[in-house]
């Protein structure tokens, strides 16, 4: 067998570099390999899953926006201006789909790979650390979220719901939302041992989807319910995308973005801590 002489030459420095790394045994700066693996696997997997994830919010938009819209008429959007009901719920549906996609990828998908396919066990016997795996998987979830968001925004444009160039920003903003949910979702999944426990995630997500000012404004609730909804992540995503979609920004926009940035940081800390506990015990 041939040897990798150039690899040996740089060996010492690579080892020393590893000692100085913040994440030492957790991270080998090769999350890209995990991403590449995901893309290769997606190539041979069924495209139906991908397509269904795209159509879900589109179907909601068509049924609620086109069907229910004329009955509801115009509603007051962020900043008080009158917009059609379809234009009101479209960004909210995109936020929901960003959440659902990220949660699916980072919970069910990760749960299966962790407990049944033993994929991560295989990966962790290589130079990869748990953090490489986490970043790679989260990145894949975001890549999918990006595809969905782009497609949905195009649908919005075709339906005449896009009236400002600012609306292009809902694509990166929905990736931000997906990032927040994905980084948390993976950490939470690591606590799950059975399918029954996985169902709790849906138990939490469904009410959040229905009540986070998705289909009607928050003002219909009494004050204390409003506070509760405002503490939950989806409302911030809905409001953020709704503001961007009509180009109406305020101080609240920054709060919504900050909410997700904090969520991402805490989520990654949680996930990494959990992976360390699970795989490097």
């Amino acid at each position, binding site marked *: 067998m041939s040897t990798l002489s150039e690899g040996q030459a740089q*060996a010492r420095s690579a080892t020393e570099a590893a000692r100085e790394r913040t994440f030492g045994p957790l991270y080998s700066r*090769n999350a890209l390999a995990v991403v590449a693996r995901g893309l290769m696997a997606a190539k041979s997997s069924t495209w139906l899953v991908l397509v269904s994830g795209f159509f879900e919010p589109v179907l909601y938009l068509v049924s609620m926006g086109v069907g229910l819209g004329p009955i509801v008429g115009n509603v007051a959007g962020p900043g008080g201006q009158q917009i059609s009901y379809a234009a009101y719920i479209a960004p909210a549906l995109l936020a929901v789909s960003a959440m659902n996609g990220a949660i699916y990828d980072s919970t069910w998908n990760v749960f299966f790979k962790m407990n049944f396919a033993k994929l991560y066990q295989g990966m962790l016997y290589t130079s990869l650390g748990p953090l490489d795996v986490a970043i790679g998987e989260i990145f894949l979830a975001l890549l999918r979220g990006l595809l969905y968001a782009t497609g949905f925004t195009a649908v919005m444009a075709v339906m005449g719901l896009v009236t400002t160039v600012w609306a292009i920003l809902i694509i990166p903003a929905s990736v931000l939302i997906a990032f927040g949910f994905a980084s948390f979702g993976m950490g939470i999944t690591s606590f799950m041992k059975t399918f029954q426990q996985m169902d709790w995630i849906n138990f939490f997500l469904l009410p959040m989807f229905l009540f986070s000012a998705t289909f009607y404004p928050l003002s219909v609730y009494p004050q204390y319910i409003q506070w509760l909804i405002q503490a939950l992540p989806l409302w911030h995503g809905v409001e953020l995308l709704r503001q961007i979609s009509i180009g109406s920004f305020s101080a609240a926009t920054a709060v919504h973005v900050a909410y997700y940035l904090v969520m991402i940081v805490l989520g990654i800390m949680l996930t990494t801590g959990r992976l360390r506990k699970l795989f490097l015990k």
Partner: protein
Amino acid sequence: MSFCGIAGFLQKIVQWLFQVFPGSTSVLWVHNEATRSFATPSSSQMNPAAVITAEKLTKTYGDLTAVDAISFEVPAGESFGLLGPNGAGKSTTMKMIGGVSQRTSGKLSIMGLDPETHGPEVRAHLGVVPQQDNLDEELKVRENLIVYGRYFGLPLSYLRPKADELLEFAQLSDKAKSRVDALSGGMKRRLTIARSLINEPKILLLDEPTTGLDPQARHILWDRLFRLKEQGVTLILTTHYMDEAEQLCDRLIVVDKGKIMAEGSPSSLIREYSTREVLELRFGSERNATIGAELGGIGERVETLPDRVLIYADNGESALEQVSARHLRPLTSLVRRSSLEDVFLRLTGRSLVD
């Protein structure tokens, strides 16, 4: 973990996103220098010839002590076996060597590095064949090898010819484009071994490599492992099959309940703990125990098991004559050479495969 660390890390993600996005998918194959750490053993604190040194290695799970202060050294190029029944602590020891399980106490050094603090670097030298195949079922056979090589940060220019070479070695060249779930058990095992060799490991960890395979598949596998041994790869092997240990191991430790019971080459262990030959007698399950008690004085030692009676003697045929002389008529009798199974029975009073 510090907050600054996280911030710096997020910054790296951003840089990295920029690296990935501007171009086509080929940018995904950015060659990552940092992970190609094929370190030479620079500063081995203990025996410099040893690639693995374990000193009082201990692992406890709550009240259970899975590995109980075991010490051993493995020199480069040796084929080293851990032999013991299920639950003896073999797999746990393997996991600690691979740095995917943290030891409770003791010292462990792999090529001069501690796998706990240098997991990725240590594993860059290791090939791992786990007890259960964990091939990537979503990828094709050849893709499995290439993607696994990518996990080590190896460049495609190296991996493409290497994958073909390993498929040849594993006798799977005609299956390169097959789906993994279309392979037989023996083929999957060979693919797992081929995959473990993608980074040209100096040490190959094999956890029960032939468990569940039919005899023909086992012999093919042994042949492949023997070739690796000839190429100077250090093999670390757990097994509860005696014939496997005898075929493949230069030296082995017999482990039971997390402790080392004996250490040596297969032949020296047999010499030390058993006789040259063994006479196996079956009198029927009800009579084995009673007749076993009447066999005292024949051979060096008599061992009565539920299904048979074993008489340890240097000459099995003459022991059988003595049995006949006592007018005892076994249903079947068999004279065979002593094996490691007998060593284990002697050391623990139990047979290896329950």
